[in-house]
């Protein structure tokens, strides 16, 4: 038997390094520190950015077979299915064209009326097209990854829409990808307006009752809401432009013992299967800064001395 075929190094007797228990203590303490710094103080973004940059080649490599498979399966999609999809899209387009053509005139009318009334101009948000690459793996939250990042000028906090409604908000930006928190995420809140009554409220993500749902919270038990009401963004938060469709109310539970009604909504956007999306610039930048608060002048008793 040739030499070097067996592990002949004697195991080290004295240089064992730190014990497993001390390693466990140090690493868990470090992990706890990271978790607190990330969840509570939000200061871990530079480390995340560095690690994501290291990880990006691996992700790119893994995406190759996935994308090859997707494009191949699209290629072999039958002609009939493609034709049906085209017809469907044309039908949708025709339905929308009437409203879309009225928009020009209505926008003009709106700007004139606003000028007449001396109101502030409606905000315009420039948009960028992007694509959802994959769902983030974390099963404890609802996030998706977009294929545009810092290099494409995606800003933190940008609202993301698909063709049906609001999808979510950009919460982390890396070099060439970015992370979108969906409106169904538990930590995501979006200010909405009931288009039937004009009442404003806040809708939260809620997946406890069924997958991909939302809850309109803090509405009084006797508030005027009905199943089927459309909720649109109200625009009071300075992030989402007003008037984008968000969700439709599905069921309402009014309880005698609770001060608030439990209102469940279904998001209009395809939160679980979005493909192509539009990223708007947050309107925060266009909102004029808050006027400086004047410090109350100290009252000087007795005048100058």
């Amino acid at each position: 038997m040739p030499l070097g075929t067996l592990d002949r190094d004697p195991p080290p007797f004295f240089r064992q390094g730190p014990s497993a228990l001390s390693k466990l203590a140090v690493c868990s303490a470090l992990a706890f520190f990271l978790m607190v710094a990330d969840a509570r103080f939000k200061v871990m973004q530079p480390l995340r950015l560095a690690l994501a940059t290291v990880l990006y080649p691996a992700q790119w490599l893994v995406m190759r077979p996935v994308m090859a498979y997707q494009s191949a399966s699209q290629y072999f999609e039958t002609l009939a299915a493609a034709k049906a999809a085209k017809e469907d899209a044309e039908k949708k387009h025709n339905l929308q064209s009437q409203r879309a053509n009225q928009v020009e005139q209505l926008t003009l009318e709106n700007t004139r009326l606003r000028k007449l009334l001396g109101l502030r101009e409606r905000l315009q948000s420039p948009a960028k097209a992007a694509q959802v690459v994959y769902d983030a793996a974390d099963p404890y939250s609802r996030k998706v990854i977009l294929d545009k990042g810092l290099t494409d000028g995606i800003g933190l906090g940008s609202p993301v829409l698909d063709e049906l409604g609001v999808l979510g908000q950009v919460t982390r930006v890396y070099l060439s990808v970015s992370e979108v928190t969906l409106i169904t995420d538990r930590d995501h809140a979006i200010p909405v307006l009931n288009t039937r009554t004009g009442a404003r409220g806040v809708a939260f993500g809620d997946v406890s009752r069924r997958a991909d749902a939302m809850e309109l919270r803090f509405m009084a038990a006797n508030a005027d809401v009905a199943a089927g009401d459309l909720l649109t963004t109200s625009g009071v938060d300075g992030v989402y432009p007003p008037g984008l469709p968000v969700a439709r109310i599905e069921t309402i539970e009014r309880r005698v013992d609770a001060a608030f009604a439990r209102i469940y909504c279904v998001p209009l956007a395809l939160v679980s299967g979005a493909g192509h999306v539009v990223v708007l610039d947050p309107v925060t930048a266009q909102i004029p800064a808050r006027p400086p608060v004047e410090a109350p002048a100290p009252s000087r008793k007795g005048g100058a001395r």
Partner: protein
Amino acid sequence: MIMRPGQQLLLPANPFFIWGSLIAAMLLNMLQNMGLWGRAAWTPDVLAVVLVFWTVHQPLRVGIGAAFVFGLLMDVHQAGLLGHHALAYTVLSFCAITIHRRLLWFSVPSQAAQVFPLFAVAHAVELAVRMISGGTFPGMSMLLAPVVEAVLWPLASILLLAPQLRAPDPDANRPL
């Protein structure tokens, strides 16, 4: 060193193969997420299986520090709380170090039954941390993940030990 009865003499492990298999397991985890099942709670964590395997078989090379670093990378990829995989893998690796002398005395199916609690503990740590920090409960299907990981153990034992089981003197009759 006490040899257990019937123990095969193995070739020395190639460090490139060890680290390559760990990275390949990480890529496989990413592939499960990006291409196969998306955001599913039951998907087996292949990286955890390979980490435990090498911690048991090569405790001098792969240990708690490596587990921590791979955990951080998984956290960044999954876009979750930074550090929760790191903590889970640290605990997993510590448990693996604790049982590594005993485990190899058993047959492979019996080993799988003994590493199952390790994976269960790692998932429980993950779940506890995320529930405390305010996450959504991912559903009962997550109970399946440690089972699938334990089932993958025999497969890992075959695939990852194969390079060490080659003939020490390959000839025309035994090319591998």
